[in-house]
């Protein structure tokens, strides 16, 4: 309708950013596929990409609920658990079921489904659970809803470990030997023991997540998506427009859980074993962190920050958890860098508060001064009295860094990386700034103004 309607030229927007976005996505898929053929399959890179794709899907599903419908739910780990269990229960080959369900006589389910049917089934079962608990829970608002869904996730985790359900869920024992992402690699003659001819495991993760996220994207931009956003923005108004609140909230909750279930199945494929105790509320918080950092209400943001988060927590920031010992010159280097950082932050605070009210300025300067003196004093102490162990780095410091990051994001960048923008909007903005820059360089400063009319920025 956007293009075919008789809306004026002014109202119709150029489709170029959408085309560029499409090209970027195709390029990413090609790049992943090529990388997979070239780089050694044991590389950390693929592990990060696969888990990143999984988390991107789950974060997108959480964003559909939290960012687009305005329902604050913390049940994501519970729905992922359901998806993961359904997927693995139905894909373990019949011949190895005895070794997996060793305490339960091979379990009672003796069917094996193709992996994608099991994935979808996982989503459907998660959606059915969502519908059941949604009936009572969706009457609640904001924090109450969050508490109720969090409780649901905990209950599900306990129930799946219950020995009575052992013949189905294998109790508290792990499920394993089901097809994982590595089973997606194409082998010569289809023989599972033959060498791999085409690596496809990471690409397959990207394809599954990509299809699901594309579906979420289409939903968000449909009439339903508009109704979701209307509910988020103003329930009373939405109701006055004839939107059935209960039905749409339920729809959003069920669809979000469906995709969380598929995400859970993907996580099972990534981890190769499934055990209920891994699906803790900590997992939900990780996903919430991704959604908040990416921007509540931006799918692009969720995807981007999912990869960023997974790369940092699994790979780039691992070193924060390891103790490290410095050589004497490295110790000096560390102290110089630390002083530079302290000086930079102090200068930044100084310049930012130059025009603040005298009272605030005085207070800020005083606090900065005290912090500077303390930090520099500590550095001096470290140089002359301290040992050679790198300060702070030890087991658990990574979590501290993440906590500081989320506090910083929430306090100073509450809109996250992307705000509510998607990639095409971003490209449009970049294009507009580029145009303005061009006009400015050509000395035609005034002309950039006319572009403001179509602006989408806030």
């Amino acid at each position, binding site marked *: *309708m956007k293009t075919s309607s008789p*809306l004026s030229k002014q109202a119709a927007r150029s489709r170029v950013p959408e085309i560029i976005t499409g090209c970027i996505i195709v390029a990413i898929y090609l790049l992943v596929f090529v990388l997979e053929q070239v780089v050694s399959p044991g590389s950390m890179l693929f592990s990060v990409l696969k888990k990143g794709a999984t988390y991107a899907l789950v974060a997108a599903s959480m964003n559909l609920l939290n960012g687009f419908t305005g329902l604050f739910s913390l049940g994501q780990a519970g729905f992922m658990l359901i998806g993961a269990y359904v997927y693995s229960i139905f894909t373990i080959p019949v011949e190895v079921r005895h070794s997996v369900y060793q305490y339960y006589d091979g379990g009672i389910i003796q069917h094996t489904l193709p992996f994608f049917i099991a994935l979808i089934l996982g989503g459907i079962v998660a959606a059915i659970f969502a519908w059941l608990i949604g009936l009572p829970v969706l009457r609640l608002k904001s924090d109450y809803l969050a508490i109720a869904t969090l409780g649901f996730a905990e209950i599900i985790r306990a129930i799946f470990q219950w020995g009575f359900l052992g013949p189905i869920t294998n109790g508290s024992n792990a499920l394993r030997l089901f097809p994982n992402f590595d089973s997606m690699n194409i082998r010569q003659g289809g023989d599972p023991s033959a060498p791999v001819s085409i690596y496809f495991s990471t690409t397959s993760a990207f394809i599954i997540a990509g299809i699901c996220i594309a579906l979420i994207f289409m939903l968000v931009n449909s009439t339903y998506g*508009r109704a979701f956003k209307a509910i*988020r*923005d103003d329930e009373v108004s939405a109701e*006055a*427009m*004839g939107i059935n609140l209960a039905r749409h909230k339920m729809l959003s909750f069920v669809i979000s859980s469906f995709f969380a279930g598929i995400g859970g199945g993907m996580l099972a494929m990534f981890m190769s074993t499934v055990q209920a105790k891994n699906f803790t509320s900590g997992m939900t918080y990780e996903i919430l962190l991704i959604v908040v950092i990416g921007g509540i209400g931006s799918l692009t943001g969720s995807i981007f920050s999912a990869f960023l988060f997974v790369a940092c927590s699994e790979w780039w920031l691992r070193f924060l958890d390891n103790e490290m010992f410095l050589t004497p010159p490295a110790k000096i280097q560390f102290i110089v860098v630390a002083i530079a950082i302290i000086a930079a932050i102090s200068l930044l605070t100084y310049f930012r508060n130059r025009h603040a009210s005298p009272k605030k300025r005085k207070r800020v300067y005083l606090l900065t001064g005290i912090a500077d003196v303390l930090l520099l004093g500590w550095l001096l102490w470290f140089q002359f009295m301290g040992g050679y162990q790198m300060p702070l780095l030890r087991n658990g410091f990574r979590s501290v860094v993440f906590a500081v990051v989320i506090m910083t994001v929430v306090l100073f960048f509450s809109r996250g990386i992307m705000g509510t923008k998607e990639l095409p909007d971003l490209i449009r903005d970049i294009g507009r700034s580029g145009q303005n820059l061009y006009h400015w360089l050509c000395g035609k400063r005034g002309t950039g103004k006319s572009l403001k009319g*179509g602006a*989408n920025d806030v």
Partner: protein
Amino acid sequence: MLKITDLHVAYGGIKALRGIDLEVPEGKIVTLIGANGAGKSTTLRAISGLVTPVQGSITYNGKQLLGMPINKIIEEGIVMVPEGRRVFPDMSVLENLKIGAYLRKDKAGIAEDIEWVYTLFPRLKERNWQMAGTLSGGEQQMLAVGRALLSRPKVLMMDEPSLGLAPLIVRDIFSIIKEINKQGMTILLIEQNANMALHVADIGYVLETGNITLKGPGKELLRDENVKRAYLGH
């Protein structure tokens, strides 16, 4: 014709409406004036199905609206512009308008009506892609009216369209109300700005603590001593 007879509404134990009778004839502007807490908004909320009355009847062209779900009432052509504008701040102007057409299925008709709203409010057209939350108060009111118009109402109910707007903008809004009315729309207007409302209205009702105390042509009410004293500040 929208007809209300003996309507009682209560919130918990508190009676907001104590049996009002009201008629909105086809093609007219009817206004309901009254002080804070008189029950004006409650009347509108009862008509649009947002609150359930204790007793009474609300009929449109003889059809009972009481007990109908909200979306059916909208499909009957009775639509409300809520108090305080309440546009969807994080959605673009175009998306806001499309939400207004949420219950309609005819895509071509919707596109036509969007064009029509844009000719009524050229300002909105300039702001097509802008987030509604970044519009000025007057523009938001225009958007709220435009959004309601997109559901193709037969009766448009407006809850204090002048709330919090500068006098000049209020004049614009009222001239647009008259314009829409001239194109055949029936309008039920709720106002605290009695002077403005009675000037445009064909029929006026005065509501006091849940009862209709006065009824008459708008121009006549403007000259009424009681109305002058209580609502016009003379």
